[in-house]
């Protein structure tokens, strides 16, 4: 017997449609292309023929091995650097703790491809290091250890912040209890703090692993000279260089997705299985101990890491941006603002790229904000059947590296039989950014919805609000603060996104990242770095301004 039930809420329908376009379509076409090599000609002939060949290809096995090796090395080095710093920060009174935190946050704001360009300017032959110290480290930089080093400096803050927060919370809540029951500080650390912090550490390391195997800029800039190919650069090669090999790109993409999804699932499993952070309150910093004789060695360690991760790349970027010519070197006579005036004068299309990226960033923030809120609503609050599928579609982008999204979009929207297509318009970039960054608003909105009692929506319905009105008047305002924070993050990241932009940007459309990348390839490094500097300023300052305006208006909740 078919029963009349409440019709599916329009918000759920919009969420489902949006998720299909933004997430399901590109992913589906990767799968189809991997199975049907002649998909591009509209033919489903010879299924699985390319797959078998490609999976046995020793080159693919080698690249997969390189990718895993790179991920693993970055994880190990990140842990070696971040864990001691984090434990010191959490349990001891480190002078200037807040300043170190801010300095370790900055690497997040410098996109890795910009940082790597800074490192190249510093360590290459006749680079800043040679000019100042008389020797260069090019052999180190353009090698696997060099790649690992640069990538670690970008990723270790993830581990640092996760571990220092967990250890601080666990230390003040549980280790103190162990002290009361007779454990020495060291014993309490080994028996209580460390075991309880392990899930947080493991989860952050898996996140670092996922970030490393997806990273494009660093291996692309450094690895080619070292002959070190990873999956991401190999996929890029297959879609952007002649001969174009779409089936190959799709198969490599699938391998990358499997690695990435594995890391993601493992991370989620660890966090849901044993999460102590989520249940505990605010850490109290009353019980921190003095460092004693270790004060200066520890401070030296903090300073060294801050210089390497934040100071050096920033200074190199600034020095390059301020140099009239690169060959002029680090001399006062060579310093001026000609690169900045060239950018602002728009003689090189810089302002247009800036405008394109900023508008795409705003658009991506709006679209992902709306879609993220609706999807999180459908998954958390609605009782609609099939919301499990929506849940999977919101989780899937976590495991879709930027390069894979780009390949999927090419495969989906470059089909010859399509009457209209966003391909070759800036819209394709918007689709790419939305798919890559959707997880942020979904995560924030999901957490916010979990905190809203079901009766708040039920009450609105009883008092006469339709599902859409209840969503707009009650739920949306309640999750607005979280959602806005996520949207600012989307804006900041989308504005300077590199890999998808390089791959899918239509001819004649350049973004901030493709502009910088191209200036570097063409030798106008100064212009690129001036642009990078302006970008870092804008994408850092704008969100801060919005947040402070929001703060002044009082709490939104």
């Amino acid at each position, binding site marked *: 017997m078919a029963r009349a039930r409440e019709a599916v809420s329009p918000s759920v329908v919009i969420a489902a449609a949006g998720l299909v376009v933004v997430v399901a379509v590109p992913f589906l076409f990767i799968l189809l292309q991997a199975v049907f090599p002649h998909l591009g000609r509209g033919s489903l002939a010879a299924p699985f023929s390319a797959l078998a060949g490609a999976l046995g290809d020793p080159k693919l096995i080698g690249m997969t091995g390189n990718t895993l090796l790179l991920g693993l090395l970055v994880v190990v080095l990140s842990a070696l650097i971040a864990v001691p710093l984090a434990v010191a920060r959490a349990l001891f009174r480190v002078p200037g703790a807040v300043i170190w935190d801010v300095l370790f946050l900055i690497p997040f704001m410098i996109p890795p491809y910009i940082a790597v360009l800074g490192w190249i300017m510093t360590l290459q032959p006749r680079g800043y290091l040679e000019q100042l110290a008389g020797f260069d480290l090019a052999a180190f930089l353009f090698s696997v250890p060099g790649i690992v080093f640069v990538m670690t400096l970008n990723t270790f803050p993830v581990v640092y912040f996760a571990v220092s927060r967990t250890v601080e919370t666990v230390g003040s809540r549980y280790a103190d209890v162990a002290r009361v029951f007779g454990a020495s500080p060291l014993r309490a650390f080994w028996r209580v703090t460390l075991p309880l912090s392990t899930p947080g550490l493991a989860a952050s390391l898996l996140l670092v692993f996922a970030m490393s195997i997806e990273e494009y800029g660093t291996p692309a800039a450094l690895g080619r000279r070292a002959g070190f190919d990873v999956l991401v650069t190999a996929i890029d090669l297959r879609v952007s260089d002649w001969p174009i090999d779409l089936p190959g790109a799709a198969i490599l993409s699938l391998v990358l997705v499997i690695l990435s999804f594995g890391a993601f699932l493992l991370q989620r499993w660890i966090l849901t299985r044993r999460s102590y952070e989520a249940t505990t309150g605010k850490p109290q910093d009353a019980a921190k101990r003095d460092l004693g004789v270790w004060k200066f060695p520890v401070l030296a360690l903090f300073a060294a890491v801050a210089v390497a991760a934040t100071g050096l790349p920033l200074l190199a970027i600034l020095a390059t941006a301020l140099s009239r010519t690169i060959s002029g070197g680090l001399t006062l006579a060579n310093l001026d603002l000609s690169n900045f005036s060239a950018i602002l004068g728009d003689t090189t299309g810089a302002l247009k790229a800036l405008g394109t990226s900023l508008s795409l960033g705003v658009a991506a923030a709006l679209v992902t904000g709306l879609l993220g809120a609706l999807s999180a609503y459908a998954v958390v609050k609605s009782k609609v059947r099939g919301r499990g599928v929506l849940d999977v579609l919101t989780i899937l982008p976590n495991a879709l590296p930027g390069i894979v999204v780009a390949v999927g979009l090419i495969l989906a929207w470059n089909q010859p039989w399509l009457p209209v297509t966003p391909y070759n318009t800036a819209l394709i970039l918007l689709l790419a950014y939305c798919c890559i960054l959707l997880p942020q608003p979904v995560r924030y909105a999901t957490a916010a919805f979990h905190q809203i009692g079901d009766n708040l929506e039920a*009450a609105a*319905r*009883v008092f*006469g609000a339709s599902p859409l009105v209840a969503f707009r008047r009650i739920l949306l305002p*309640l999750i607005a603060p979280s959602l806005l924070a996520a949207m600012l993050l989307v804006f900041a990241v989308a504005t300077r996104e590199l890999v998808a932009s390089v791959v899918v940007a239509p001819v004649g459309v350049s973004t901030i990242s493709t502009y910088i990348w191209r200036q570097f390839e063409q030798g106008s490094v100064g212009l690129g770095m001036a642009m990078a500097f302006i970008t870092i300023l804008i994408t850092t300052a704008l969100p801060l301004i919005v947040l402070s305006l929001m703060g002044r208006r009082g709490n939104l*909740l």
Partner: protein
Amino acid sequence: MTGDRAGNAISARQIYMAYGKTEVLRGIDVSMPQGQTLALLGPSGCGKTTLLRLVAGLLSPTSGEIAIDGQMVACPSLFVPPEKRGLGMVFQDYALWPHLSVAGNVAFPLEMAGINGAERQARVKAALDRVGLSAMADRSPSALSGGQQQRVAIARAIVAEPRIVLFDEPLSNLDRELRETMVAELGALIRGLGLTAIYVTHDQSEALTLADQVAVMEAGQIAQLAAPEDLVEHPASPKVAEFLRLGAVLSLTRDTGGWSYGGHALGPMGGPEASAAEVLVTPRALRIADFGTTALSGEVMAVQYRDTAYAVTVRLNQAAPAQTVQISSDTRMRLGERIGLEIVSDRLRWFPARTQAPVH
């Protein structure tokens, strides 16, 4: 409760509700006339809140029909969403919207009904006046105490002048003293506005005070539907009697000499013509006597001062598993004091033995 829907404010017929394989409601039939208050009373998990949410339209029944004011709102071919049912509702957790002021919360139902401007303001003020909170109109709900938040929730439920208001354990989050005042206020409000109300609660005194009819629910079914005085005088089953805390239910067996409890003869006492039965012993059915002079005796376990007398808990000496009864005493008794208990047989209420009568 058969078919005739006309004249009933709410009627539910053969309501079944299942989540997957768990049946939460199993064949509910209930209807109530205009202007009456129906209490749904039962322990947690008995399905009373589910039934209320079905009436509100926040859930849709697996099968069965619900009509409000003679209009079908849920049946196999039709589902009227909550916003089209024109109800008021007070939630257990208040469900005040934290981003709206007190006045904003109360104004919401009017706004949804398209009532604007001066009329809206006047009605919000009138509703807040009625609950004594007009001074708090511009505050945030989170700045209010629990009792005040509850009053805001009540003002919001009545501001649009609905015919029917649903109450979902509205007082369970308040402390006892406040609860007793609020019960009286709510009763006055419901009568004063001539509301039809469904009131869900697990507190039998609230139900007995407020309701014209009480439906005692147990495991997804209505165990008894009756007016409060009938319920107290004639509970339909030992379970109902136990849930209403009317007294102790004892299992008795009968032989030629009359009834006996735990192997101790109690005498004839009337009762049904059966070899076993259960009997409800209310405090009024027991009289205190000297120890050793009666068939039933016990030891004082607890003494509590209540209203004008002492409520005394006595553990029976004759019971194999521990069994206590309540009596009322004008004097304070010592803990551990041994007393005799005399049974007033015409105040007993008999039930048939449960399927397997315990044999002593």
